[in-house]
């Protein structure tokens, strides 16, 4: 009973406890430290699976509720509960952190500290997905964002961007593309978002009576329309900057390129989802009038994101930048689904979070692996790697296929639902650039696959190339298996997502505007 009653807090705490263990034991090094981290990550993953198994679909709503007072004076409490979305996103987080730790096994520099930060970060991610108190939600959100600075700044890799364009003078002060630059830019842009979120949260708190930060209070409150209009923009900007919304996405390519493998995996795989999740869960659901007003713009920007990200990826020559821009493009799909305000669109948006999380996790794991062996990210210098790393090549193509929406892989289900939702929305045309974006994805993803793995080569200087080994295999195969599983049997998690969407969408549309029935 204890386990069930505290399942959520245990899941959230598991990585944190592992981090504390690592922190308390400075002598843990190498494989021992990694094993501790793996145990913590796997425990949280097991918790996520237990949540999935124990969530009662026929009942729906919030389940596994836990509530502890935190700052009673301001009505803040640690209120954890899971809904259908939470089930799906917890599973995603569990998969990504577990495989992320596995993919980190080759790290040999300050690995204990690295794992501590990584685990703390992932505790925050779990927390966001199960928080039912806006303030605690925000706190967890910050835990998830902040360790990035050190993770990228210390363990990141260096890059360089040529000084060009009308703002070339900026290079006098910043080493654009470097890891310190990337870490600083990412942190500042994301925390600028956080500041905006905080202002909106404070406004919502007072407008809802100033007694509680609970979702249940804030969600039903009658906010003045004028306040909703500006507060929604703040939330959109705030969460959206983490979700890679144009034009606040520019931290993402630099950040992802500089970040070490596991961090890229976690960041693109899960963290960017927090942003999109925030826009939906807080922005749209709590400020329906604001959402109704701004949704055409949100959708239009999302469409721009899809095409912009894909076109930018097309022109990149750095392996990590390509994948990073593809994340910008794919997060556009999430935001597009959200902006449709339709059942299919929202289902697709959340499903895309899961699907893209796994896909981009796999991508970054593979890219990290290639980088680890080739010591280069420069695509034009590569070629023919498949000879030495056939497994990596195969899985890279698989990830690429999921990203371009090949049926049978997770990406298709998500994109299909989103486009379906788009066509049902008031802005049917959104589907068209969305689909074009998927085509452009096919162009750049498969091209980079060819440029890196196929054709003649490998050239001189790539003698150390070898296929994945041991734990790397475990990470890659697990992610690929998830992609296939989610592509073949989507209802495995879609039922849960659908359940929550059914409950939440009317909040935005207003009770009169929908007749969405619960699945039989």
């Amino acid at each position, binding site marked *: 009973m204890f386990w069930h009653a505290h399942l959520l807090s245990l899941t959230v705490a598991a990585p944190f406890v592992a981090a504390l263990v690592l922190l308390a034991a400075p002598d843990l090094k190498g494989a021992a430290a990694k094993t501790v981290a793996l145990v913590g990550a796997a425990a949280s993953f097991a918790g996520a699976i237990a949540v999935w198994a124990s969530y009662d679909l026929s009942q729906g709503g919030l389940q596994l509720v836990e509530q502890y007072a*935190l*700052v*009673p*004076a*301001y009505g803040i409490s640690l209120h954890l509960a899971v809904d259908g979305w939470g089930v799906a996103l917890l599973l995603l987080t569990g998969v990504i952190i577990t495989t992320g730790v596995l993919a980190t096994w080759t790290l040999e520099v300050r690995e204990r500290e690295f794992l501590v930060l990584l685990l703390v970060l992932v505790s925050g991610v779990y927390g966001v997905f199960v928080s039912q108190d806006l303030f605690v939600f*925000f*706190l967890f959100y*910050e*835990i998830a964002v*902040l360790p990035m*600075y*050190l993770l990228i*700044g*210390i363990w990141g890799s260096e890059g360089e961007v040529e000084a060009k364009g009308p703002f070339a003078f900026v290079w006098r002060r910043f080493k654009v593309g470097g*890891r*310190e630059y990337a*870490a*600083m830019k990412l*942190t*500042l842009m994301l*925390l*600028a978002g956080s*500041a*905006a979120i*905080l*202002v909106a949260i*404070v*406004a919502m*708190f*007072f407008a809802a009576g*100033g007694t509680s930060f609970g979702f249940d209070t804030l969600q039903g409150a009658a906010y003045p329309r004028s306040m909703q209009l500006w507060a929604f923009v703040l939330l959109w900007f705030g969460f959206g900057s983490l979700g890679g919304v144009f034009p606040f996405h520019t931290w993402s390519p630099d950040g992802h390129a500089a970040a070490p493998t596991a961090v890229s995996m976690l960041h693109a795989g899960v963290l960017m989802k927090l942003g999109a999740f925030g826009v939906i869960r807080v922005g749209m659901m709590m400020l329906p009038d604001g959402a109704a007003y701004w949704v055409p713009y949100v959708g239009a920007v999302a469409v721009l994101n899809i095409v912009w990200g894909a076109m930018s990826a097309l022109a990149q020559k750095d392996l990590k930048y390509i994948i990073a821009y593809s994340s910008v493009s794919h997060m556009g799909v999430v935001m597009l689904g959200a902006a449709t305000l339709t059942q299919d669109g929202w289902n697709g948006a959340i499903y895309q979070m899961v699907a893209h999380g796994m896909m981009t996790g796999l991508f970054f794991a593979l890219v990290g692996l290639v980088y680890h062996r080739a010591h280069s990210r420069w695509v034009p210098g590569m070629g023919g790697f498949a000879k030495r790393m056939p497994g990596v090549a195969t899985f890279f193509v698989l990830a690429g296929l999921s990203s371009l929406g090949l049926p049978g892989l997770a990406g298709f289900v998500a994109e299909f639902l989103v486009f379906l939702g788009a066509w049902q929305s008031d802005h049917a045309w959104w589907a068209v650039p969305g689909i074009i974006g998927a085509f452009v994805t096919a162009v750049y993803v498969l091209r980079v696959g060819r440029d890196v793995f196929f054709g003649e080569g490998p050239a001189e200087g790539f003698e150390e190339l070898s296929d994945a080994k041991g734990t790397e295999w475990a990470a890659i195969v697990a992610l690929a298996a998830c992609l296939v599983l989610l592509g073949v049997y989507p209802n495995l998690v879609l039922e849960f997502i659908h359940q929550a969407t059914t409950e939440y969408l009317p909040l935005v549309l207003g009770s009169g505007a929908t007749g969405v029935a619960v699945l039989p």
Partner: protein
Amino acid sequence: MNTLVNFQPLMLDLMVLFVGLLVLVMDVLMPPGRKRGLGQLTAVALAGIFALSFVVDVSGVAFSGAYEGGAWALFFKRLFLGAGALVALGGTDHVDRRYPGRQGEFWLLLLFTLVGMMLLPGARTLVLFVVAFELMGMPLTMLAAWPKTEDPTGPGRRAPEAALKMYLVSAASTAITAMGLSLLFGAAGGLRLDVIAAAPQTPLLWLGLFTTLGGLSYKIGAVPFHQWVPDTYEGAPTPVVGYLSVAPKAAGLAAISLILVETFGAASARWLPVVLFITVITLVVGNALAVPQRDAKRLLAYSGIAQMGYLLIAVAANNESGQAVMLFYLAGYVVTNLGAFLVIEAVCADAPDADLSRFHGLYKRAPGLAFALLIFLLSLAGIPFVVGFWAKLYVFMAAYEAGLVWLVALGAGLSILALFYYLRIAKVVYMRAPAEDTPIAVGGGMRLAIALCLAGVVGFGAWPGPIVDAARAAAAAFGG
């Protein structure tokens, strides 16, 4: 009860005074080589008084109403006592090593400034105000000038310049403020705050009020009265700067609150535009000038100016929750900023300056110090899970409640800029290679002081509830 001779509300102040006299006597009696004990004595005594503050009843009125105890004043006294104890604890090494034979006077002066500050929040007459301020301010100037070094490259070589700048600006502003006070007296016909509050609202009164406000702004280092701050912080001995950066600021804010909120609270429409103007330029200038700094102490000086801007937002809110927020903010600020300066002292103890390059790779040389510094910086930046976050949050909430949404937006936006310069320090600490690999030796007292600060920052951050409640209770007593 004859309140003229009721010393009950002044018990804590008198204890500190007694400690000061004890130090004076001991200084004479002790052999020159054993004077280290004076610092420890000060630390222990202040900590003891701090503990006693939870036992002794210091409420009531003294000097026929010229002095008023109570929860609000007590909150401030605890802040001062805490800051004093931590500085004594962390500064003993510094004083012992750098001022051999002169330790006694150092601690004595420190204790006197403490007495001055502790008198201030309870003062209800302009005379006591001025006396308390001067008792606080003059020994501080002397402490800033304490190093007597002939070595032009040694530590402390800039202390005379630092002290001179502090002194001259202080003298100018004190003289003009005194003129303002005399005008207040002239307009009101009395020196008691309640008399002034009831005075007819003549131009003379407003002239006096705003001149006084300017003088107080000098104390907290608000723009444009801030220019002595960076130079003094950079040149004065680091433990003194740490103390200077928190305790007198709190005292200044107590005085501002007494004048603006307690005395002229009803006429807030008169002074609010002025305070808002000062707040805005303080926030902007403090943050903007902190960005390009290369010296850690100087950077923290500008950041401290910016922090005063946030505190002024709380004052501008002009309500009870504003006062509560100010108290909470100050409590967090004392441990955070003092902790940061103590780390700087630990790292740059024998260096002529605190250039950021001295912090390169601190992570490797002293992981504990590096971590503590990181936490202090994050707290200053207002990042969740450390006390600074709650402080900023509550400030914003109070300002929002008072209808100052634009000020919330400005403050939130500038906090991103602040994050940039705080992270610059964190960056060199964690991401740059150290010039030398030698580990940094940190004395026990310093270690304990930093650990206490850290515990405060993290503890208040993780569990702000009790402090929030205490601050609210104290604020409720204010003006009651």
